[in-house]
């Protein structure tokens, strides 16, 4: 009974809290620009509206066009459930769950790009090609970050890996993971979610042809993914295990808020990079994680 209850509370955290983050980012951007901006709850309204709408399907689309978003949504939420939530721990924890989390995110990538390619549109092809190509470097950075946390704690289970602070390399790891967060969630400077030019988009270009409930699933999944990365970054850097349960919860919320505001600020003060510079920035992220790994390696006792 308690496990079922626990699972529901957890799902509620992930499903209900996630759409708040894009709202906060937009509010920060509006505040910096001196605008009023859309309401913080705008994405909730959008999702509710989309869920009620009908669907326009491309004449070329196979059933995979609708199944893709569903698979991606389940995969992202599955990955999120593996992540511990501060004092509450994880829904399920076992040796090697860190790798399962990474590969569930990869499954989500496979199905969104698959759905994008369904329409035969060159714009969506461009978006999908960028998504899978940049993911190669992002994946290298993520594996390196996981290795660094493993070396720090002597474990391959997220619950143990994320309990202590990342130690001396925390700043490096934070910088590396934040860069990966921006890339994986298609934020500035990698991608501009607000642009109106399809040629320069990644994520938005892939979902041009989606509408109605499948689009709602994609947008909600993207929000959960952003929350996932924010939680991962916070817990990797802050010493969650040393805090009292209330302190840890507070730290987690504050950390997620700080990351979200940080994304908003980056988006306010930085322009999108030219695509040829994206690999350089991602390589920097890999190097930051690699240095964090070296610091953890030299840093001493397990």
């Amino acid at each position, binding site marked *: 009974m308690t496990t079922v209850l626990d699972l529901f509370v957890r799902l509620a955290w992930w499903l209900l809290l996630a759409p708040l983050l894009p709202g906060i980012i937009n509010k920060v951007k509006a505040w910096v620009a001196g605008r009023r901006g859309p309401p913080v709850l705008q994405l909730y309204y959008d999702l509710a509206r989309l869920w009620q709408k009908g669907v326009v399907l491309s004449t070329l689309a196979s059933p995979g066009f609708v199944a893709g978003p*569903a698979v991606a949504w389940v995969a992202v939420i599955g990955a999120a459930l593996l992540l511990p939530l501060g004092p509450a721990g994880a829904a399920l924890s076992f040796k090697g769950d860190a790798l399962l989390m990474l590969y569930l995110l990869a499954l989500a990538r496979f199905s969104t790009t698959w759905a994008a390619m369904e329409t035969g*549109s060159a714009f969506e092809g461009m978006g999908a090609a960028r998504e899978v190509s940049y993911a190669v470097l992002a994946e290298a950075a993520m594996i390196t970050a996981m290795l660094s946390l493993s070396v720090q704690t002597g474990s391959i289970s997220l619950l143990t890996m994320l309990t202590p602070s990342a130690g001396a390399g925390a700043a490096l790891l934070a910088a590396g993971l934040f860069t990966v967060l921006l890339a994986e969630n298609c934020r500035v400077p990698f991608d501009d979610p607000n642009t109106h030019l399809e040629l320069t988009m990644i994520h938005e270009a892939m979902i041009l042809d989606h509408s109605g409930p499948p689009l709602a699933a994609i947008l909600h999944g993207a929000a959960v993914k952003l929350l996932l990365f924010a939680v991962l970054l916070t817990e990797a850097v802050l010493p969650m295990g040393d805090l009292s349960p209330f302190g840890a919860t507070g730290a987690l919320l504050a950390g997620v808020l700080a990351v979200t505001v940080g994304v908003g600020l980056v988006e306010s003060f930085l322009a999108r990079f030219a695509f040829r510079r994206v690999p350089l920035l991602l390589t920097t992220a890999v190097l930051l994680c690699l240095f964090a790994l070296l610091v953890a390696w030299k840093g001493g006792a397990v």
Partner: protein
Amino acid sequence: MTPGPFLLLAAVCLTAGIATGPRRPRLWTGLSVAGTAAGLGAALLGLLGAPEWEWWSGFPVGGEELHLRLDALSALFLALLCAVGGAGAVYAGEYWSDHHYPASAPRGRAWWSALLLSMGWVLVSSNGLHFLIGWELFTVSAYFLLTLDRTRPEVRKAGWLYLAASHAGTVCLFAFFAALASRTGSWELGPMRDQLGLAPLLWLALLGFGVKAGVFPLHVWLPSAHANAPSHVSAIMSGVCIKMGIYGLVRFSGWLPVPAGAGWVVIGFGAVSALLGIAFAFAQNDYKRLLAYCSVENVGIIMIGLGAALLAAAQGDAPWGRLALAGALLHVWNHGAFKSLLFFGAGSVLHATGTREMSRLGGLWQAMPWTAGLFALGAIAVSGLPPLNGFTSEWLVYLGLFDAVTGRGPAAGGAMLAAIVLGMAGALALASFVKATAMIFLGAPRTQAAVRAHESGWTMRAPMLGLAAVCVSIGLAPVLFWPAVARAVGVWHPAWSPTGAPAPLFTLGAVHLVLAALLVAAAAWLWTKAQVNGWRRGLTWDCGYAAPAARMQYSSGSFAGIGAGWFAWILQPVRNLRRPRGLQPVVALRLEYVPETVLERVIGPAAEVILQVSTTVRRLQHGRLQSYILYIVAGLAALSGLVLLGGTS
């Protein structure tokens, strides 16, 4: 019950298959299925607890008495051989039928049986001489299968390259077995870990078996051979034949003492193969070449696991080596299953459209829904994504590598790099297979050939369904397959005796099961929801462009552009560019293909040099008697000079 009678039955069926194959296709299919089923039975007995089976006979073959042996390790590979061999025999009935290929189909059936028989022979023979005989027969049978369609020049070229490369490898194996026999005084094979003097011989085995396994940069023969062979032959070559190289490596690194540093070499070549193999795959435009290069990557993953196990064994039998080797051996099965599935799917597409160019296909899901679905399943498996089998084995290899890192032993640095390479290779595999499935099956048909495509018949779909079932079951219930793999690991290294499945594997299996159910449920839910809300079909939006043409779709070359650009230093793409000229350009062209760089830029020029040197030297031999007499005189003078100078004693 011993595997003996099953093996005998399999041998009898397959031999009968060689005899009856050319004239009786239906009987041949029956015999092949019966023979492979019997072989599978023997393999399962060997894997599920029967003690190691050995059989001697006084009957000499080639001067040596017969000695057969089936332990868990050979049974593991035998099971793969029989599964793919049986599936391929059923598939070939329709794919390479007498109706379409009256000249080569009868020949193909006989060679197929011969190939299965000789590979099985290699797996069970425990005598160096017999191993070599079987090895040579298997190489030659594969050559004749590869060149079934020998009227096409590129097939003959690929076959010739395969034969030459294979024999370069076989030379190393001749040296290896001969040196082994001369040092031990007998051709008999078996565990000889305590004879430390034999250790350097393993380098020869590494080279010889490495060529067969297609390890980068010894893989030069593999892409053209696997691309040009008939697809059922590609399936068995990629799924099983290259695994014979892996079998040799695993077998003899287990039986012989291992030289220091071998673990580093194996893991290093594994990492290079994994990354570069998949980089080449990503840049291909021919889907069968893409699959072939992807085999190089998967062999790399297996070698990473094997190398980690060798390192662990050298460092006091660290338990993480067991995980890495178990992952590698499970990946042997997994790759065999999903790669054969993908090649069968590719054959089905080739059968329906007659082209191997991805840029000439598209939109095939409508005409061939079964092939599209099964190919997609194989693509998810080969990209190493949960909940299918590819992830299970890669996850075990990862666990071994991460344990090596957290153990902070001397191998930790190598394990870190290997893990990062594995991650990048996985992401590139995903990119390659999104590209392949999307270009072949999604979007709009790019040519008339793709418009006219048709689904293949049941005898081609059934083997694909069987292999897909294997992929799904290893993914959803990995624990069931653990005992077999653990026994093979125990044979390789007795210190790692078989144990129950590790607890995380149970959890992973359960998670996969729940995940699979949720994925299906979510897809069904969203589908119904979309239907309830109401849907209509419209033109792809394409930013408002009202008249999209099929050729405007993103092509396979543009999809791979970014990733291929990063690897341009090794891919060396060849470009053919004709820019649009004038105010009203009529013609513009941009063709790009990736050559087999190692072959065309390294081995090709080296062969040219050797050829030039030999041509120059050949001028000495011209048939003029006077000059020959001069050579003899000069030779005698040189020898006398040598004797005079050194003649102090």
